[in-house]
């Protein structure tokens, strides 16, 4: 397990004391991360918003009983992940096409030139699309490690599996995503796009 940041100790201590400023710090840092994770897992904005609400309400309800060594990031992702899987079990969600995610595409970010902007937007769209066609088990490990920057050990704890099993799943997930990207001519452009 990754050593705990000294700031995390203080933050947890303040959260345990129901400090609303500490809550705001955690909320502003992790809200977009947890929402992005839930959105890409559920592929539905409405579902992601509902699960996000529930995740934060759980943090608040359990704030006073958090262990002093709790690491907020992994704790929140664990709750979010469990909520997603619980939702998925309860509602027997059908796998939907990648088009649903594409419809959620926000306005383009600022890029150096209109060409870069269009190319990068297209690449990102393809990556989102390929990612959304992976199984949720593969999607979650890729998102947790590659996008959220969790260590494989932390991601394993979030997913409730052994670190070795996570590494294996991550490797398979990476290969599956690479294959999906190769099915479209995206990867070569992608390498060029992110290299610049």
């Amino acid at each position, binding site marked *: 397990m990754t050593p705990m940041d000294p700031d995390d100790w203080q933050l947890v201590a303040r959260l345990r004391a129901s400090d609303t400023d500490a809550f705001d710090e955690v909320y502003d840092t992790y*809200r*977009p991360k947890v929402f992005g994770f839930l959105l890409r897992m559920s592929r539905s904005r409405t579902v992601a918003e509902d699960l996000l609400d529930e995740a934060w309400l759980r943090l608040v309800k359990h*704030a006073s009983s958090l262990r002093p060594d709790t690491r907020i990031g992994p704790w929140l992702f664990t709750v979010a992940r469990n909520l997603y899987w619980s939702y998925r079990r309860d509602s027997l969600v059908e796998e939907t096409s990648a088009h649903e995610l594409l419809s959620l595409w926000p306005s383009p*970010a600022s890029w150096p030139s209109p060409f870069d902007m269009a190319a990068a937007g297209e*690449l990102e769209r393809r*990556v989102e699309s390929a990612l959304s066609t992976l199984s949720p088990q593969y999607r979650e490990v890729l998102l947790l490690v590659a996008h959220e920057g969790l260590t494989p050990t932390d991601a394993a704890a979030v997913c409730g599996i052994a670190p070795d099993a996570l590494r294996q799943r991550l490797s398979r997930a990476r290969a599956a995503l690479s294959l999906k990207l190769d099915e479209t001519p995206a*990867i070569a452009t*992608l390498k060029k796009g*992110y290299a610049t």
Partner: protein
Amino acid sequence: MTVDEREKDDVFDAVANLRTRDVSRRRADRLRNRCHALLQTKPEEHVTLGAMSDALLRRVIGPVLGGAWCLAYLVEIIRRAAAIHGP
């Protein structure tokens, strides 16, 4: 996969560079206010009498009644069997 391998990997880069998403400002503020209100509520207030009696029913009374009913059913079956096939 090590952190270094992760950093060098194009596929991981592609996922890492996906943009951050967020809820609307209004929704974020509404949830923040709701959480602040809950945080400022004392923990004892969360545990209501109703919740306690629910837990008691679920953990103690339910299983005890279920067990008693099963035992009575079993005794009755044995009693009737003994009446038919008895000595």
